């Protein structure tokens, strides 16, 4: 299948960033339609669309919206997770910079459907360009009467603010994001069933909807064209509907964001990105650093869909797709992945805080030529001790890539340990590792 540009259709058009240009292309028609509909009918439309969260977990969006109390007793908050931090992912960034109104319109629709009072866009601190674009768009939406008091004569009031983070991957985790927005260290909060769901008690203990930027950006299209229409996209897959943006990077000729319909294959995605650069395909991390790595054969057979990718041995995740060529050292790559998690672990729970640091140390030892054969079993043991035993998803996300690589590329680890140097050498390898380098000796 070729690219299906829905959200990114006008991404290259600078005029689309302003409210005038956006409305010229049909913008805010979805919101106007929603405002003329019953709140429950809006949620039903989202249900019919089959939309699932684009932030990583793929949770059905309508269930979150529907979970907000219908008899209002407290303020309701609409929160946008724009803390994109997953290595390999850069789709929310493009959406915010080039199509900010799409996300804002989606948030207002969510606000209407759930009787929201205030929306917050939590943007990662590094994304100053995004923050400027979103703020400008919010100002314009106020002036046009899509935000503020008595929106479009409905008597409904809804405000929206930009809030910037200050450098922490963990703040992308939804409960940590709420902690951070409430002025705390970005640590996760107790979860269901030990605490109420965020839809019951989220921000300031009030009902809260939290979705990813891309999830909200889908809502206007669903309202305009109907949920049934949206559900025709990706109908070839088990349970994934619509389009998904994949951020393609690594050893490809044309890195960038590609929007595809579910049911497209990873091989087609690779072709869109101009194919491999510098050598043939060795491996692919299809959904951001947190998902298990695939070898070339698995990659070429993988169909993109939430369930289909699990069958292929990985996950859709956030859509940060990295292709690695034949000269890549998997051991070094996985060490760098482990280093990321060790640095970003918030330190709240022991399995993750200690486990991520140990994994990094062991992989570093292997990468420098000092590994021991027992290290492989030790790594597997640590992974199984972290997975499912950590307080939030970061721990699991740290264990999966390591466990996955040990399963798919065991020979690379064994070779490195046995010989004290990598199975590969070449410009790619020499570029990717910090000193000391231990390339193949010939």
């Amino acid at each position, binding site marked *: 299948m070729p690219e299906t540009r829905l959200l990114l259709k006008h991404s290259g058009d600078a005029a689309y960033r302003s409210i005038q240009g956006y409305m010229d292309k049909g913008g805010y028609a979805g919101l106007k339609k929603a405002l003329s509909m019953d709140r429950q009918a809006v949620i039903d439309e989202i249900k019919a669309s089959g939309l699932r969260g684009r932030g990583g977990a793929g949770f059905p969006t309508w269930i979150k919206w529907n979970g907000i109390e219908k008899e209002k007793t407290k*303020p309701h908050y609409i929160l946008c997770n724009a803390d994109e*931090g*997953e*290595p*390999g*992912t*850069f789709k929310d960034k493009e959406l915010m910079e080039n199509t900010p109104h799409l996300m804002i319109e989606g948030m207002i629709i969510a606000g209407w459907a759930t009787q929201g009072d205030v929306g917050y866009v939590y943007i*990662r*601190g*590094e*994304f*100053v*360009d995004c*923050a400027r674009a979103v*703020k400008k768009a919010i*100002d314009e939406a*106020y002036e046009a009467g899509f935000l503020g008091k008595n929106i479009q004569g409905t008597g409904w009031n809804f405000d929206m*603010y*930009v*809030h*910037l*983070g*200050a*450098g*922490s991957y963990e703040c992308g985790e939804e409960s940590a994001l709420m902690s*951070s*927005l*409430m*002025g*705390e*260290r*970005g640590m996760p909060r107790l979860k269901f069933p030990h605490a109420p769901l965020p839809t019951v008690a989220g921000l*300031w203990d009030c009902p809260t909807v939290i979705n990813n930027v891309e999830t909200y950006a889908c809502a206007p299209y669903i309202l305009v064209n109907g949920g049934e229409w949206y559900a025709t996209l990706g109908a070839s897959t088990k349970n994934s509907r619509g389009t998904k943006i994949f*951020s*393609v*990077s*690594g*050893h490809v000729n044309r*890195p*960038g*964001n590609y929007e595809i319909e579910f049911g497209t294959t990873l091989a087609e995605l690779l072709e869109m990105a101009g194919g491999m650069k510098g050598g043939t395909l060795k491996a692919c*991390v299809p959904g951001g*650093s947190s998902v298990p790595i695939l070898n070339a054969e698995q990659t070429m057979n993988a169909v993109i869909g939430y369930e289909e990718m699990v069958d292929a041995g990985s996950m859709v995740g956030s859509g*940060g797709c*990295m292709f*690695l060529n034949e000269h*890549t050292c998997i051991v070094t*790559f996985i060490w*760098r*992945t482990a280093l*990321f998690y060790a*640095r*970003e672990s*918030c330190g709240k729970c022991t399995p993750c805080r200690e486990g991520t640091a140990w994994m990094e140390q062991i992989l570093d030892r292997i990468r420098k030529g000092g590994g021991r054969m027992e290290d492989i079993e030790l790594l597997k043991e640590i992974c199984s001790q972290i997975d499912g035993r950590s307080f939030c998803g970061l721990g699991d996300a740290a264990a999966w890539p390591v466990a996955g690589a040990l399963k798919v590329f065991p020979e690379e680890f064994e070779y490195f340990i046995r010989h004290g140097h990598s199975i590969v050498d070449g410009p790619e390898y*020499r*570029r*990717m*590792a*910090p*000193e000391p380098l231990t390339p193949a000796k010939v």
Partner: protein
Amino acid sequence: MDVIQISDLRGRPRAPRPEEVNLNFSEKAVRELEQLLNHYPDKKSAILPCLWIAQREYGGYLPSEAIAEVALRLDRSYAEIEGVATFYTMYHVGHPTGKHLIEVCTCLSCHLCGAYRLADHIKSKLGIDWGETTPDGMFTIEEVECLDACDRAPVLQISDQYYGPVDDKTVDAILEKLKSETSPSTVRLADEIVQAQLHKRDQEKVSGN
């Protein structure tokens, strides 16, 4: 005014009292904070934005005095504000950085595309290692995690600007240009982040129109 002993404030669960803190926020900063406080139902939630204001007002980092001032203005204890500030990598607590902070992404896509070699080049050119500042106080180099611009790997961030893909030559040109840049990029970044959170109507009130 008596010089405060920050160490006295540290262990106390209460917020500092006005007589214990030197206030250094400019009038503009005070008005900005007033507007930002309207965005949230409580004062505590303004801690992050207020720390950004403080980082700008105190010249690009957060000395103990800045932490104390934020604590006073938001009615929280010194320890709480320090605890929050130290969690986040973009607040520079206690130690100033060089005038220009060069953040090199060495995360997955960037390391595949040669970020460590690029870093070697910058380090040897400036004669400093990760986290160090050149003796003239001009540059600090830091290793950062994915900046989410992997399509442009390898990527650098300096102030609010991303640069990528960069090689040794483009980096040299960037460093050369920064030498003639007078305003510290860390202060500019903090200011941009504060401004991005102030709506048009907030900004009108800040400037008194």
